[in-house]
């Protein structure tokens, strides 16, 4: 496979170029977009930008489990919901702030994922997919029916916005920067995870789990780790959502949301992180851009998904090209430290 070809030794020019794209993306996310948003200064645009960023994180976290590890996950929105409910309940019952709820939401979602993964991780293909569907629906039913604890269909009002160690960040621009910072850090972390030896082990499970097992890869354990990690990031996204909108209800975390996230990963290209990010932006921003279509938003999700499976089976940005891009752009950390470059400290392909 192309993905495993070695990287040619790089000279100074391409080394400088390798920082161009990440720098441009950072500039766009942290300077150009906020400037644009501040220029328009309409709450609605901030809302859309934040929503898109949150779905970028959800899509990236699903990329880890569905794209890289190849486990078809149909209940991702439930873990997003667990994170959101954790944040909302901690805020409304214990009065904790965002600084505390953000990591705790991720941890609680990861814990729930770990517990449900214990019995189900040995299932394969369609059985796994349906088991995750069942788990997602069960969690949704808990959110909907455990009225004493979650207030059921009425939802919960989250009274506190973003803050960092007591400093309020609930202004529009500050909130955008908070969401952007958390999402960027998480996406970088997911990128480092999926483009490492660890990610390659997960890929080996996706390609042929029996073979990987025979080669000594501990498949069940790796699957559980990928599932738990992805739930952690989904929980983080849930906390962002709860503090951003100030109100959550079970309807935000139902089956169709899981499908939407799945569609993002599929459209972008299974196994490709840049693809997952692009897919999320496409499926959130396109319906907003085409507001005239109104009710056709969901039908478009289905159509885009169907057409991309049919016409672009590798997605908008296939895995191989995505891997090349990542290695070229973020080269230094996982560059092949072949002969002539000295120490073998890169974490990438050797």
């Amino acid at each position: 496979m192309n993905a495993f070809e070695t990287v040619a030794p790089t000279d100074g020019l391409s080394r400088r170029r390798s920082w161009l794209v990440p720098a441009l993306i950072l500039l766009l996310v942290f300077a150009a977009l906020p400037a644009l948003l501040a220029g328009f200064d309409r709450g609605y645009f901030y809302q859309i930008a934040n929503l898109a960023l949150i779905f970028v994180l959800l899509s990236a976290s699903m990329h880890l489990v569905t794209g890289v590890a190849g486990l078809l996950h149909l209940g991702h929105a439930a873990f997003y919901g667990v994170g959101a409910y954790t944040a909302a309940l901690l805020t409304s019952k214990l009065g904790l702030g965002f600084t505390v709820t953000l990591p705790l939401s991720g941890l609680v979602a990861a814990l729930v994922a770990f517990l449900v993964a214990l019995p189900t991780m040995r299932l394969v293909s369609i059985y796994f997919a349906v088991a995750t569907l069942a788990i997602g629906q069960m969690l949704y039913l808990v959110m909907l029916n455990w009225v004493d604890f979650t207030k059921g269909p009425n939802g919960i009002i989250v009274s506190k916005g973003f803050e960092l160690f007591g400093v309020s960040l609930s202004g529009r621009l500050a909130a955008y920067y908070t969401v952007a910072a958390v999402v960027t850090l998480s996406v970088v972390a997911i990128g480092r995870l999926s483009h490492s030896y660890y990610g390659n082990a997960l890929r080996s499970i996706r390609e042929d789990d029996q073979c990987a097992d025979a080669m000594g890869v501990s498949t069940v354990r790796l699957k559980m780790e990928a599932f738990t990690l992805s739930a952690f990031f989904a929980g983080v996204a849930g906390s962002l959502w709860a503090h951003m909108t100030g109100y959550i209800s079970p309807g935000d975390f139902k089956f169709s949301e899981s499908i939407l996230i799945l569609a993002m990963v599929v459209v972008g290209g299974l196994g490709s992180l840049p693809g997952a990010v692009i897919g999320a932006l496409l499926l959130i921003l396109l319906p907003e851009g085409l507001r005239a279509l109104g009710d056709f938003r969901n039908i478009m999700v289905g159509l885009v998904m169907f057409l991309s499976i049919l016409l672009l089976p590798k997605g908008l940005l296939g895995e191989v090209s995505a891997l090349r891009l990542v290695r070229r752009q973020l080269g230094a950390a996982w560059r092949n430290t072949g002969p002539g470059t000295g120490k073998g400290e890169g974490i990438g392909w050797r």
Partner: protein
Amino acid sequence: MFDPYYLQQLAIGLSLGMTYALMAIGFTLIFGVLNVVNFAHGEIYTLGAFAGLVLISATAPPIVAVILGALAIGALAGFSLERIAFKPFRRFTDEASLKSRAMRESTLLSSLAVSIVVREALEIVFGSQMRSVPFDYLINTPVRVGPVILVTGDFIIFGVAAAMLIGLQYLLTRTRVGLAIRAVSNNPLGAKYVGIDTDRTIITTFVVGSMMGAAAGILMGLYYGAVFPAMGFTPGIKAFVAMVMGGLSSIPGAVICALILGISESMATTFVSSGWSDMVAYGFLILTLIFFPNGLFGARRERV
């Protein structure tokens, strides 16, 4: 225990189970017997119900004509579903791609995508609210049987489900078409080598299974008196659970498990609350997958 109240709940559970069984029969034919992952069966069910509703509100024909209309729409929908969501992914017929996970998962995703499109299209055309079926067509006239009260629909559904079950068993085990279906599900390439038109067999299975799905949809619409675009989702899940519990390829197993599911759910509604009764199906699914991976009545499966 022999309180008439519980007997009544048991009867309600049985009739609920019957409605699941009705859905599960067609579902198991496509999914379990043919071994094709089809997430769009719930939408076929919805389409059947809406076809019946449109017919009723347009021309008010006799009930038999309504059901025939729904069957025709079901056949058409099954045919188009196979052409749109499954045929394009059978581009290659060599052994490796027929068995590959990638192909199986792409049809899983494509049928999921088609089901979203159909459901949303129905929502745009008919609105997402429940539409009620005209009173004359409802099949819920109460009938008293000993200490419990049933409705006419229970008997109709029982009759239809039994007819479907027997008809399908006959088709699968006694006719050449059934033999071809079983051959294709067992080994598509082998079936091709011995001269079976696999494409046609798959289409036949889809058409028959979808007709059953559509019939289930219209009967349910007449039974509950309400038709809405998302109505196929829950029965689809229940049918899937019944199929997995029954051991995938066994249609009688799926029917028995649908009855068990219906009774358990009605008991859960009685003793806990109706909001939690859906939990029973999901719980059963997970428990079956973990403890009885071969299903309660199924043959051995390689990997679950």
